[in-house]
């Protein structure tokens, strides 16, 4: 009898030895003449347990991890193929509390299946959304997305259906769907996990978007830092064309939609939608002023729906299970689920898909288990390098777009980076300005010059040179950047700086022993 073993192909799992574990399992099985089939799945998103080995037993899938290549012999000795006891034994995968309490809608299949087999995708609910959408006129598709309450998951949280309505209403042809896969925020990896762990759901979402707005061509703009995702997408696009999920005849409907993959080149700013469009057109990734909206004049000047990976990957389930099903999750105007990403100095880092409304404290402690170092958590940065630093007094705020905005935060793409009490918040504020200086496209002055001046001013403050005056100058500079920048890069860089200053002023004091001039 053949036993099926799952070892993730996810880049993060591979980064800690999943390939070597899979190879060792294969060689030991061969040496012992045991019949096994190794399936390389996506990651379950419990990265502290990677490489996570799962075995299909009569009791269902059971997990062992984190497994080293040197653990493999002992796993065989312990009869892991039938769920035998071993110090790495974790029990039934689905019963691991971290996973069991999640609400996985967008990530329903990630980690479950071989991500590159279209038949497995379809057997686990794939393609049902596209089939439903193919039976609907474009206006109904758009309105269903509006009713679902789905908002842009890339960070700006703009209602997806409203954007699609604008593109649908634009008269110029051709139109385009552009998937923003330039996931540059530190602390985020949900786009990567979808692209590596369930790429067909993204392609299906893009095809539905194409039907909704009247586009027959889609582009995925993928950051170059994700070579594993690139390989997965190349294979998935080929399989999708073969299987009718893409091409000139979508699932036999006679409707056409195809996708082309483009690689970015290491510019963070290209995650900003207009800079991304410039880059796709073969130019420097310089931000465009808005208006015109990309929905009306986007790629090559044509109407374009630009959506983040998670937004598009959340579309199929809205057509499979209905807008009302999706909208019942969440709170207020933040409907549905968000795949939160727990990152940095956290004990149990990984992906937690939950309905909006969960609090930071629940995420950090119930899921994350506190800091990795065991020291107190001092600050978290939510929403990437342009998100605010939050102290413990803010940990009970529900993760809801409006609630977060009300206290000066931003959920953004759902990344949560944890820092323990060894963090120097003035250093982090300086880094925020430095990052902006490195990644600014240079089009507008507040961002291009302001970020460099910001680094200098924070250096003065940290060195205790004219601290009071320089703090005033820093606030003034932040004000100029906030209100005078063309896009969120310069406009939001002050958020981490000012929040660090507001919540952790003690870190900006003059160094002891230095004379304050």
């Amino acid at each position, binding site marked *: 009898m053949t036993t099926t073993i799952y070892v993730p192909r996810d880049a993060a799992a591979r980064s800690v030895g999943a390939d070597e574990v899979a190879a060792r399992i294969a060689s030991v099985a061969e040496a012992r003449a045991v019949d096994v089939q190794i399936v390389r799945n996506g990651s379950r998103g419990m990265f502290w347990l990677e490489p996570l080995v799962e075995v299909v037993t009569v009791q269902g899938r059971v997990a062992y991890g984190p497994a080293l290549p*040197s653990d493999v012999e002992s796993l065989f000795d312990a009869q892991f193929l039938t769920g035998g006891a071993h110090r790495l034994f974790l029990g039934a995968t689905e019963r691991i509390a971290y996973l069991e309490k999640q609400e996985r809608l967008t990530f329903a299949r990630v980690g479950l299946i071989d991500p590159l087999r279209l038949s497995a995708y379809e057997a686990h609910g794939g393609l049902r959304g596209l089939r439903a959408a193919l039976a609907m006129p474009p206006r109904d598709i758009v309105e269903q997305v509006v009713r679902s309450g789905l908002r842009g998951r890339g960070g700006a949280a703009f209602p997806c259906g409203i954007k699609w309505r604008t593109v649908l209403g634009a008269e110029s042809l051709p139109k385009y769907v552009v998937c923003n896969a330039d996931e540059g925020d530190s602390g985020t990896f949900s786009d990567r996990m979808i692209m590596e762990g369930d790429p067909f759901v993204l392609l299906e979402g893009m095809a539905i978007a194409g039907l909704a707005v009247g586009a027959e061509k889609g582009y995925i703009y993928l950051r170059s830092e994700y070579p594993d995702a690139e390989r997965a997408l190349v294979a998935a696009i080929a399989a999708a064309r073969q299987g009718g999920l893409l091409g000139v005849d979508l699932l036999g409907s006679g409707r056409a939609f195809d996708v082309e993959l483009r690689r970015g080149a290491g510019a963070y700013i290209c995650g900003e939608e207009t800079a991304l469009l410039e880059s796709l057109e073969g130019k420097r990734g310089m931000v465009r002023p808005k208006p015109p909206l990309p929905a009306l004049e986007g790629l090559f000047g044509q109407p374009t729906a630009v959506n983040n990976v998670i937004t598009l990957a959340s579309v199929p389930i809205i057509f499979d299970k209905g807008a009302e099903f999706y909208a019942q999750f969440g709170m207020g105007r933040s409907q549905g689920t968000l795949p939160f990403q727990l990152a940095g100095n956290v004990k149990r880092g990984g992906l937690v898909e939950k309905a909006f409304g969960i609090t930071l404290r629940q995420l950090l402690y119930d899921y994350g288990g506190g800091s990795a170092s065991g020291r107190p958590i001092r600050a978290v940065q939510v929403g990437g390098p342009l998100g605010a630093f939050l102290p413990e007094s803010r940990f009970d705020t529900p993760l809801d777009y409006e609630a977060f905005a009300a206290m000066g935060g931003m959920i953004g793409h759902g990344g949560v980076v944890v*820092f323990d009490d060894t963090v120097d918040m003035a250093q982090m504020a300086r880094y925020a300005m430095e990052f902006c200086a490195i990644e600014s496209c240079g089009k507008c002055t507040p961002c291009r010059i302001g970020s460099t001046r910001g680094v200098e001013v924070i250096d003065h403050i940290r060195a205790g040179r004219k601290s009071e005056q320089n703090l005033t100058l820093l606030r003034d500079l932040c004000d100029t950047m906030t209100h005078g920048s063309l896009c969120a890069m310069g406009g939001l860089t002050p958020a981490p700086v000012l929040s660090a200053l507001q919540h952790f002023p003690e870190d900006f004091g003059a160094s002891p022993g230095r004379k304050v001039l």
Partner: protein
Amino acid sequence: MAKESRTGTPILLDRSPEVSASSPTVDQAIADHRHLPGALLPILHAIQDKLGFIPPDATARIARGLNLSHAEVSGVISFYHDFRSAPPGRHVVKLCRAEACQSMGSRALEASLKARLGIDFGETTRDGAITLEPVYCLGNCALSPALMIDGQLRGRVTAQWLGALVASLSGASPDEARPHASGDDATSTRKS
């Protein structure tokens, strides 16, 4: 030399770009991608995938092939962090500098690595073994600190492991230098 193959394109330069050893690669990349709308980035990637950098004389050839100005092409090459104008070392180490990795000690790793290699970001060791580059997030933020070595992602990087990696990359021949994690030694990055 390749003049005939560039039919149908308005010639904007008054003289042909000079021919060098890399010209066939550059011309091939242009020929393979010039039909794409917005072909410049795919062309530059194709060249760098092959050569490891964008040779200086490629600019004129690409400009000619795409009917762009020299300034437009060099402007794009210089804008994006990925494109190098000089050949890298035998191995490229990209160390993540972003927040999540900082929270797990990447600043100390960065300092010790630079000191050990005797180079700063963007530089190559004198023996030509290692080019060190910064990167701003590799999407491995739950397994920080992270780095990428010749396109291969690594997580839970420790100073000890990094030291062993540098030693193996500096000493061994290019083909043998990958840190194969076939035993415990190479997975010392695991927290126990």
